[in-house]
């Protein structure tokens, strides 16, 4: 076997050293494109997914979110929960929110929304809400009878035309809000927020106290307690620590929530991703096989000669396995250069969707390793199969075609 490997390596080495360089460059170029095809689209979809999960962290869920137990509408002892959470090591900040359903009326235009009651000062440490005010100002601790309206329902943001909107509401305008319990309030629009994310731009914000008053709550309730951690990646660990601290309400990490909530939104994207991977793999496998097979067929006579002079079929098959592995390794290397060039370009110049949503591709090491292993496995199969097939032919047929 060692002799087979040595001879196989010598044949492959000679072939690479003195073979047609233009053919080599062409094969490597095609293989690099095959590799790129395997990794590029998943990276873009990964970027899209990352964008959505980032939105989820930055707005509704933070790093960890605590929700009411069972069928309860509220976390009834939210302040107690907050106290326990804030005492946990690794927690950077936490706040409580009240989400309720309502409709907003402005100049006979009515839009249904979710209104979030929040503590504005605490939000600076929790979310990006305070930083996405495109017109007017964010709420303050003294904000009463004031509302922040998402750009899509205000009718000023991109995509407003798709949804019912209030028709170009600007800061200073008065709107009438009818809450789900029938209570009506008139608010002055303090600001318009635009997060280029529907969950944000179709939402409205008021001070926590407003919701408390409207719903007659006791100052301890919340629909969610939102938590941010010191260090990304420790969410699951902190989640456990919060549970250990005696919080009995359901506790989710942003990943848990993303999985369940974004799953639907990403389902079609995921299907495209999977289909694209399968198609890429099939196309890639076919192309690698075709390239190597043509290469082997062109050397059919050579294989016959090698057999005729006593080189074992195993050496011949190994030489083609080495050769195709070499081609594919170079293809992967060139593909990685192309891939990283494109990644860096698109990270510096993100692809813009809907004018405002910027998607930067994500470099996923696991995906890269998977694709490299796949390509190398294919290369070994692609090298071995045709060479094995030709090496089994009679010497006369291989050399003289009969």
């Amino acid at each position: 076997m060692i002799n087979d490997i040595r001879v196989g390596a010598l044949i492959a080495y000679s072939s690479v050293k003195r073979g047609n360089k233009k053919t080599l460059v062409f094969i490597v170029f095609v293989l690099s494109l095959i590799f790129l095809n395997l990794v590029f689209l998943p990276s873009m979809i990964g970027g899209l997914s990352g964008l959505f999960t980032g939105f989820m962290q930055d707005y509704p869920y933070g790093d960890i979110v605590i929700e009411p137990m069972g069928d309860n509408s509220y976390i009834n002892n939210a302040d107690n929960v907050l106290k326990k959470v804030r005492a946990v090591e690794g927690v950077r900040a936490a706040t409580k929110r009240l989400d309720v359903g309502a409709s907003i009326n402005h100049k006979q235009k009515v839009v249904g929304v979710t209104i979030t009651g929040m503590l504005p000062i605490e939000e600076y440490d929790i979310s990006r809400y305070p930083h996405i005010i495109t017109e007017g100002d964010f709420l303050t601790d003294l904000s009463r009878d004031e509302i922040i309206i998402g750009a899509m329902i205000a009718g000023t943001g991109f995509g407003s035309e798709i949804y019912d909107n209030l028709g170009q509401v600007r800061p200073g305008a008065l709107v009438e809000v009818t809450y789900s319990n029938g209570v009506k309030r008139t608010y002055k629009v303090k600001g318009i927020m635009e997060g280029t994310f529907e969950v944000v731009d179709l939402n409205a914000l008021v001070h926590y106290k407003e919701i408390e008053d409207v719903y007659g709550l006791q100052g301890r309730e919340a629909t969610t307690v939102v938590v941010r951690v010191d260090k990304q990646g420790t969410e699951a660990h902190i989640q456990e620590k919060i549970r250990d601290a005696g919080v009995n309400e359901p506790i989710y990490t942003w990943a848990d929530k993303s999985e369940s909530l974004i799953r639907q939104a990403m389902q079609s994207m995921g299907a495209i991703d999977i289909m694209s991977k399968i198609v890429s793999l099939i196309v890639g496998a076919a192309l690698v096989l075709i390239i190597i097979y043509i290469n082997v067929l062109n050397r059919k006579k050579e294989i016959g000669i090698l057999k005729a002079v006593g080189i074992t079929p195993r050496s011949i098959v190994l030489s083609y396995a080495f050769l195709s592995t070499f081609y594919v390794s170079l293809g992967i290397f060139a593909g990685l250069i192309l891939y990283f060039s494109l990644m860096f370009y698109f990270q510096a110049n993100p692809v813009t969707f809907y004018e405002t949503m910027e998607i930067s591709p994500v470099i996923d090491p696991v995906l890269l390793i998977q694709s490299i292993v796949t390509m190398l496995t294919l290369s070994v199969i692609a090298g071995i199969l045709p060479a094995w097939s030709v090496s089994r032919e009679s010497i006369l047929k291989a050399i003289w075609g009969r």
Partner: protein
Amino acid sequence: MIVAKNIKRCYGTGETAVKALKGVSFKIDKGEFVAIMGASGSGKTTLLRILALLDDATDGEYTIRGLEVSSLPEAERSYYRLTQVGYVFQDYALINEMSAAENVYVLSMMEGKSKKESYKTALEALDKVGLKGKHDRVPDELSGGEKQRVAIARAIAKKPDIMFADEPCANLDTNNSKQVLDVFKELNEKYGQTIVMVTHEPWHVEYVNRVITLEDGNIISDDRKLKEKGSTELSSQNSNH
């Protein structure tokens, strides 16, 4: 050394079957330089390929040094081709991407010799056929005669029991042909190499000491004392057939 008994080779079946060899028998002793001659289609190349284990006989027995080789499994035939048999092809059959030395020493490596030892053996073989200093050249950088000498070096480097050559001068001019035949003659006379060569050139018989002539798949003459008789007589004998 070689004993062939009633070797038959038939291509195809039924009415379209072609009987290339119809039952040839002969014996070749060690150290002989034998030419197999005959008109095109007489079966001489078929016979050589069977003797060199590149093709199978349809029927008959064939032994080399007492070993029945015709019925060996492919793995053993491959080993036999590697270690006991040298074959020189009409069209050189060199690997174009290998240098002259690599074309030769790849076989020594296959036998298990170290690269250094294999390289040394290859250089000796190339020197022996007059290609000293050309071991790094690839086939495209060599003349037809030089290519054929590389092929001969490849065949003799492993010191085979028998060397077979299938019309080794068919693609060469007279001058190159003489050079190649001189190499064969030297190998035979100086080193006692057994050589079986297929040729259709009458003047080649000057170099050999036995001629087996085939016609329509049968041996029609087997002349062992050529040197005494002279090539002219043999050429005349061949032309009568």
